């Protein structure tokens, strides 16, 4: 095993060991603190390995692969497991482990109020998540990615449902699992189709174009679920029931981006299927615009961020649909940093004011200056203000979309860029500017465990964009920031959005179309449609079938038994119980038999 492979294995196995330890030693877990130590130590080891791996690689180096047979029957190997280290996985590994470590350190402070048992359980889940995510990132083939994919889904389910005593959290967890599982059926079928046509799950598999289209469409179905694309996005806003750090890590920075990562990873396959690209382009654009619209009217700070995540994932998917894997991947990386930053900052606020509602905040910039600055950097970066990370990656995407599909997706995303700046400006104004609310008056900055990660994440959120060229070279793509019309338009719109938000909300006003959007949000048409499908179609069908099975299928069996018993009663009359009658019957039988013998 080569050093890079070994490092990758360490990155995967360290959290796995922590998770295993915490599962097998319940006593340790229940103490709480040791669980956090184990989990964070494992994440540190993972981050160290990931950094060593990433820095040890020079750009353009060929991929390092180390696999062992996993699903093997006799001499036939169906699938292997192992590590596949190239620029993409190394870079992704660094992003994932870095954000994870920040979030975990943040969590130590954020979850302090939790009971010991819950505290330990929380970190056990985190270790499980990091293991699964790393497994997904270093996957040498589609099957291992799917394994990691499902396991992060499990971690997401467990973490959303962390406050399982709350019925809303329980519902949200189950809903998230169902929606992603529904989408994952696509991946499962896609895997089977891919294997049947090419005999492997390798990234390099090249099926015929028709098969490739089918496989990629099926895979994209899974991506839509995991990366919360319209109309499968409904679980993501609900997922905010989980603890805020969890939202930062899973439902903003890493897990939901796994769908994007899948497409980046399987890019050779997706290149064979232009049709899928078109579908992705439209789905991404529509998701971005739709979610941005809904983000405008949310009153819950986490919901704003959740819809924003949806919207940004839409950007990435659109970029992938346009055929630019690098643009998507670049935005994935920058988005991971600034969205994690935003969520953690929001977590810090929520921790301080004990509420998610924007109305309960306000004027926090004085009481929590550091958080305000961090959140501000995140807002500006997300809005795409020139010079910050989000600007570069978003503009790359918009540039890639130029001229695609009659400029419509381009226009949609440009509009979304304005909306993004506007709703993020609104959040910042409502939370940090203006007069403090009753609760916000007593808020104060938390300790280093919470502010430290904010500082760590704020740095890349601000400056990551300048490393775009380096990243491109590192993953084997090319990227040259250019300043044409699109970036100019986008940055103008971004600035305009923020200014507009300050102007509108700074004076306590509301935009004219907010009511319309609010109605749309309340109506929750997509959510309703799914609910209808669930309760009116699935549950109704299951109720009907349950009745049918009990009273028709089983009823038929009962009827058979009934008929047998009745027939028995009917025939019983001949049983007189008198020996002579039986004897006569025997003799009559003998006579009949001999008659038959004589006559035949």
């Amino acid at each position: 095993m080569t050093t890079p492979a070994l490092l990758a294995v360490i990155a995967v196995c360290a959290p796995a060991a922590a998770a295993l330890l915490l599962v097998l030693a319940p006593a340790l877990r229940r103490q709480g603190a040791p669980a956090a130590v184990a989990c964070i130590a494992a994440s540190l080891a993972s981050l160290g390995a990931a950094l060593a791996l990433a820095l040890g690689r020079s750009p353009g180096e060929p991929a390092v692969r180390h696999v062992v047979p996993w699903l093997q029957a006799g001499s036939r190997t169906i699938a292997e497991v192992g590590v596949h280290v190239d620029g993409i996985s190394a870079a992704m590994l660094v992003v994932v482990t870095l954000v994870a470590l920040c979030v975990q350190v943040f969590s130590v402070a954020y979850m302090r109020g939790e009971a010991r048992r819950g505290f330990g359980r929380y970190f056990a889940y985190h270790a499980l998540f990091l293991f699964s995510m790393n497994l997904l990132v270093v996957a040498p083939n589609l099957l291992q990615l799917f394994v990691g994919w499902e396991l992060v889904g499990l971690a997401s389910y467990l973490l959303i449902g962390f406050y399982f005593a709350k019925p809303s959290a329980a519902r949200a967890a189950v809903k998230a699992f169902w929606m992603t599982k529904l989408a994952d059926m696509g991946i499962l079928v896609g895997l089977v189709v891919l294997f049947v046509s090419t005999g492997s799950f390798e990234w390099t598999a090249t099926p015929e174009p028709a098969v490739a289209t089918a496989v990629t469409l099926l895979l994209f179905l899974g991506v839509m679920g995991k990366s919360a694309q319209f109309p499968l996005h409904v679980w993501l806003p609900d997922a905010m029931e989980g603890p805020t750090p969890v939202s930062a890590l899973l439902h903003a920075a890493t897990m939901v981006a796994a769908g994007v990562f899948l497409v980046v990873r399987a890019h050779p396959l997706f290149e064979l299927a232009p049709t899928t690209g078109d579908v992705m382009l439209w789905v991404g654009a529509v998701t971005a615009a739709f979610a941005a619209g809904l983000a405008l009217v949310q009153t819950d700070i986490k919901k704003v961020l959740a819809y924003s995540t949806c919207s940004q994932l839409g950007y990435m998917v659109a970029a992938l649909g346009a055929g630019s894997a690098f643009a998507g991947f670049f935005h994935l990386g920058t988005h991971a940093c600034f969205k994690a930053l935003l969520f953690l900052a929001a977590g810090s606020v929520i921790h301080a004011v004990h509420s998610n509602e924007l109305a309960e905040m306000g004027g926090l910039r004085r009481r929590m200056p550091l958080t305000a600055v961090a959140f501000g950097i995140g807002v500006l970066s997300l809005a795409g203000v020139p010079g910050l990370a989000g600007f570069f990656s978003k503009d790359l995407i918009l540039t890639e979309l130029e001229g695609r599909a009659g400029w419509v997706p381009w226009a949609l995303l440009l509009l979304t860029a304005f909306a993004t700046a506007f709703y993020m400006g609104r959040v910042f104004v409502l939370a940090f500017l203006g007069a403090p609310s009753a609760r916000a008056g007593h808020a104060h900055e938390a300790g280093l465990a919470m502010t430290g990660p904010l500082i760590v994440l704020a740095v890349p959120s601000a400056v990551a964009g300048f490393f775009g060229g380096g990243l491109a070279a590192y993953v084997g793509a090319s990227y040259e920031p250019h300043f044409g019309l699109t970036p100019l338009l986008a940055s103008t719109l971004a600035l305009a959005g923020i200014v507009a938000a300050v102007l509108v909300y700074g004076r306590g006003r509301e935009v004219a179309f907010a009511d319309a959007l609010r109605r749309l949000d309340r109506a929750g048409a997509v959510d309703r449609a799914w609910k209808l499908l669930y309760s009116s179609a699935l549950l109704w069908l299951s109720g009907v079938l349950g009745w049918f099975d009990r009273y028709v299928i089983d009823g038929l069996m009962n009827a058979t038994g009934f008929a047998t018993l009745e027939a028995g009663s009917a025939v019983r009359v001949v049983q007189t119980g008198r020996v002579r009658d039986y004897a006569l019957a025997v003799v009559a039988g003998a006579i009949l038999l001999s008659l038959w013998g004589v006559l035949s």
Partner: protein
Amino acid sequence: MTVDIAFWVAAAAMVISALFVVRSANLVHAVLWLAVTLLGTAVVFALLDAPFLAGVQVLTYVGGVVTLMVFGVMLTQRHDGSVASASNVQSLRGAAAAALLFTLLLVALLRSDLPSSAESLAPDTAELARTLLDEHLIAFEVLSLLLLAALVGAVALARRGDDERGASGLPRARPRARGEAE
């Protein structure tokens, strides 16, 4: 020729005694008449080159079964010595059935082309023993199981009424079946 005469004599004795078996009002007499029929059968067996079976017939039937029957009759007769009279209410129906069956079998007999061999094809005793314990071993073993089961069953059945009898040893006026209580 002697064999034929012996056969006809035995046959006549058997038929007559059989008629007494079914007609005799006294059960003890009927059993004794049955013994005569069985003895006749033994004679016919011997004439049919089955000496071993003839011996078995005498031993088990005449010696065993008839004795058993006599015991059975004595145990179940009324203590005052009177004999339950055999009713002939349905004798017409019985006679008709018997006659019909007999006629049918007779017709079948007459219409059949039966084999007849001058010299005996019957196995000798040694051969009989070998076939019994070789070719028919399973049936033999199963039969022994049946006998055991019959033995146990007979004992169980016969003992079953014990606890229902009164102190006098006589049946109760209205005995209750054990099965009903359970």
